[in-house]
C-alpha cells in the first residue's frame, strides 16, 4: 500500500562493523562484518514490509538502520525526504531530529528484556509520554495509557500498570511493549522478531493485534522474522511486501503471493522448503542446498554470496554478483535465473569437489 511519498526511503545503505582497536591494538587486522551491504528500499505510508532471512544475515541491523538507531557506514536513510543523520547534525533541518526519533519506533524480540525489570509498568509507560507530551498533565497521560492498555486487552489497566514486568506473562509483556511504542504515535514500527519469543499458540493472536492497531493508527511496519509462515501471515493479511535477506543483501523482494508462490531466488526456494507445512507438501526430503552451514560473514564468498550453497550455481555465479532483476509487479530477485537471457544459462555448472549434500 505504498503511497507516492514514502515514509522511509533507504538508498544504497551499508553497515559495516569492524573491530575498534584499543590502545595496544597496534597490529590488529581488520575484521569487517558487512552486516548490511548496499540495500535500497522504500517503505510507504501504512505499508508493511516483512524481512526474513537466516540468523546473522543482517536483518536487525538493517531494521535499526532504518529507524535511525544505527548509523549507516554509507548510503542515506530519508524520513519523508529528510536525511535522518543530516537532521541530527544539521542546525535547522526541515524535520527536526526529535520528530524523526519519535516517529520511528521499535518492538524488541524478547519482551522480557525490553522492559526495565526494576520499574513498574506505569513508570515505564509514563517516561516516553513525559518526554513527548510535556504539556499534558499526569492524569491525562495516564488516561491515554489506560485507554491503550484496555485496547490491547490488558484490563483492568489500573491493575496492570502497578505491576512489575516479571508479574506479567510473555504475551502480556509483549502487549505492553507494543503499547509503549504506540503511545508515541509513530509512523513506522520496527517489529524485530516481535513474536518469536511467544508460544506458538499466542503468535497468531499477537500478529492480529498488531495488524488491527496498524489499521487503527495508520502505522507502517517493518516486520522481521526468520519464519516464513509468520512472515507470510503478516504480509498477506496486510497486503504487504516480503523481502528475503541473505548475507547483508536483499536477494528477493516482492508482494507476498508472488514470492511465496513463485520464488525466483534459489535461497527463497530453500527457505520455502524449510518451512514445513502441516498439510500437503511432504515427501520432498532432498535438501535444496549444497551446504547446510552459512559461510563466515567476515570472509564472504565471491560473486553471488549464495553460490557455495546454491544447487543451481554455475561458474558465472562464482565471479559475478547479480543485481536485483525485477520481473513483474515489484517482484525482483538477485539471481541470474530471473533473467532468461543471461549468460548464466551458458555457464557451466560448478563442479563440486566435496560432493553434493542433497
Amino acid at each position, binding site marked *: 500500500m505504498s503511497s507516492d511519498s514514502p515514509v522511509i526511503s533507504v538508498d544504497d545503505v551499508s553497515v559495516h562493523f569492524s573491530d575498534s582497536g584499543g590502545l595496544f591494538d597496534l597490529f590488529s587486522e581488520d575484521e569487517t562484518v558487512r552486516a548490511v551491504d548496499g540495500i535500497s528500499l522504500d517503505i510507504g505510508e501504512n505499508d508493511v514490509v516483512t524481512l526474513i532471512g537466516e540468523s546473522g544475515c543482517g536483518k536487525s541491523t538493517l531494521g535499526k538502520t532504518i529507524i535511525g538507531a544505527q548509523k549507516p557506514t554509507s548510503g542515506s536513510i530519508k524520513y519523508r525526504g529528510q536525511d535522518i543523520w543530516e537532521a541530527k547534525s544539521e542546525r535547522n533541518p526541515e524535520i527536526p531530529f526529535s520528530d524523526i526519533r519519535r516517529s520511528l519506533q521499535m518492538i524488541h*524480540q524478547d519482551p522480557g528484556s525490553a522492559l526495565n525489570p526494576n520499574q513498574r509498568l506505569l513508570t515505564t509507560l509514563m517516561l516516553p509520554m513525559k518526554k513527548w507530551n510535556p504539556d499534558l498533565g499526569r492524569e491525562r497521560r495516564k488516561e491515554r495509557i489506560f485507554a491503550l492498555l484496555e485496547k490491547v486487552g490488558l484490563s483492568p489497566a489500573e491493575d496492570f500498570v502497578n*505491576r512489575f514486568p*516479571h508479574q506479567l506473562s510473555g504475551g502480556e509483556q509483549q502487549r505492553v511493549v507494543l503499547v509503549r511504542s504506540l503511545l508515541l504515535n509513530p509512523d513506522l514500527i520496527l517489529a524485530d522478531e516481535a513474536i518469536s519469543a511467544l508460544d506458538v499458540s499466542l503468535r497468531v493472536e499477537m500478529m492480529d493485534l498488531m495488524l488491527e492497531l496498524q489499521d487503527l493508527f495508520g502505522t507502517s511496519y517493518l516486520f522481521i522474522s526468520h519464519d516464513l509462515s509468520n512472515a507470510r501471515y503478516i504480509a498477506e493479511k496486510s497486503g504487504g511486501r516480503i523481502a528475503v535477506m541473505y548475507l547483508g543483501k536483499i536477494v528477493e523482494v516482492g508482494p507476498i503471493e508472488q514470492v511465496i508462490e513463485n520464488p525466483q531466488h534459489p535461497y527463497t526456494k530453500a527457505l520455502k522448503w524449510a518451512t514445513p507445512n502441516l498439510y500437503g507438501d511432504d515427501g520432498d526430503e532432498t535438501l535444496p542446498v549444497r551446504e547446510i552451514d552459512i559461510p563466515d560473514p567476515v570472509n564472504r564468498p565471491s560473486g553471488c554470496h549464495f553460490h557455495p550453497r546454491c544447487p543451481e550455481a554455475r561458474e558465472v555465479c562464482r565471479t559475478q554478483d547479480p543485481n536485483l532483476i525485477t520481473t513483474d509487479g515489484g517482484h525482483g530477485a538477485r539471481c541470474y535465473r530471473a533473467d532468461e537471457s543471461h549468460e548464466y544459462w551458458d555457464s557451466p555448472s560448478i563442479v563440486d569437489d566435496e560432493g553434493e549434500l542433497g
Partner: protein
Amino acid sequence: MSNPETDTFDLQSIYDESIEPEPESRRVRLRRAIDLNVLAPARVAADDWRALLGGAILGLFVLMGTVGVVLVDKPTSGDAPVLAGPFEELAYPLGTDVFGQPIHSQLIHATPGIFKMIFAGAVVSVGFAAIVGVVSGFKHGDRIDTVLMTLTDVVITIPGLPLIIVITAIFQPENPYLVGIFLGIDNWPGLARTVRSQVLSIREESYVEASEIMGIPLSSILRRDILSQLMPYVMINGALTSRRIIFESVGLYFLGILPFTTFNWGVMMNLAYEGNALTRPDMIHWMVFPMLCIFLLSFSLVLLSQGLDSLFNVRLRARHANTTKKDASRASQSD
C-alpha cells in the same frame, strides 16, 4: 482479543476525552511507594536472617557512634584504677587500660572516627568506581573507555597495601576523612571494572535500547535504566569496601604507620600489643575488646552485603508488597 464496540476507536478520541482526575491518586501513590520501597524491603529483611543480624549489629555500632558518645564521657587517664579487669565494676564494665581509661568508653569514642573513615573511603572508592565504570561502559569502544580501562588496569596492578603504606607514610593524614580517602584510592579499580561490565551487559538489554529509541534523555536512561540496576551491586560492594577500609585503616593504626592522635581500635590494639598484652594476662582485655569490635563491625557488613542481595531483589520486594499483589498463578508463570 478483540473489542468489537471500539471499532471506531480513534487515537484522537482518547486524547480528547477528559476524565476527572482521581482525587485520591496522590495519597494512593504515596502509600504504594512507601509500601514498596520501605515496608516491603523491611519485610524481606525480616525474612532474611543475615540482613536482620547484620543490620542489627551495624545499628548498634551506629548507636554507639551517635548516642554513645553523648552518653559516655570521653575517657581520660586516671578515670579509674589502672588495668582493672573486665566485668568487675559497673563503671568500667570492660575494664581499663594502663592509663586507667575505661575500655568501653574508648571503644565508643573511637566509633565516629571509624565511621567517618568508612564513609569517606566508601564514597571515594564506590563513587569513583561507579563513575569510571559507567562512563567507560557507556562509551564502550571509545578512546575514553580505553584510557579509563588502561588506567584502571594500571591501578589494579599496583599492589594496594604497599602503595597506601607509602602514601600514608609520606602524608601522615590525621583527619579520618582523609585517611578514608587515601584508603579508597586503591579500592576502586576492581569495582570499576565490574561496574563497567555490568553496564555493558545492561546496555545489551533491549530496554535500554528501547529507551534510546524512544528518545528518552540520556540522564533518565542513566538514572532509571542503568543506575537502578547497578545500585544493588554498588551497595553490596560498598559494604564490602567498607569492611576492607576498616581492615586497612585499623591495620595501619595497629602497625603505627598512621599517626594516632584520636581514639581508634587499632591504636588501642597497638598500645596493648606493644605493651606485650599477649604475654600479660592482666592486659589482654585491652587487646581483645577492640579486636571484637572490629570483628563484629566487619561481620555485620559482610552479612549485610549478603542480605542486601535479597533486599534489592525486585521480585522478592514485589512479593512482599501489599499494593502490587496479583494473582499468584500469573506471577509464577512468567518467572
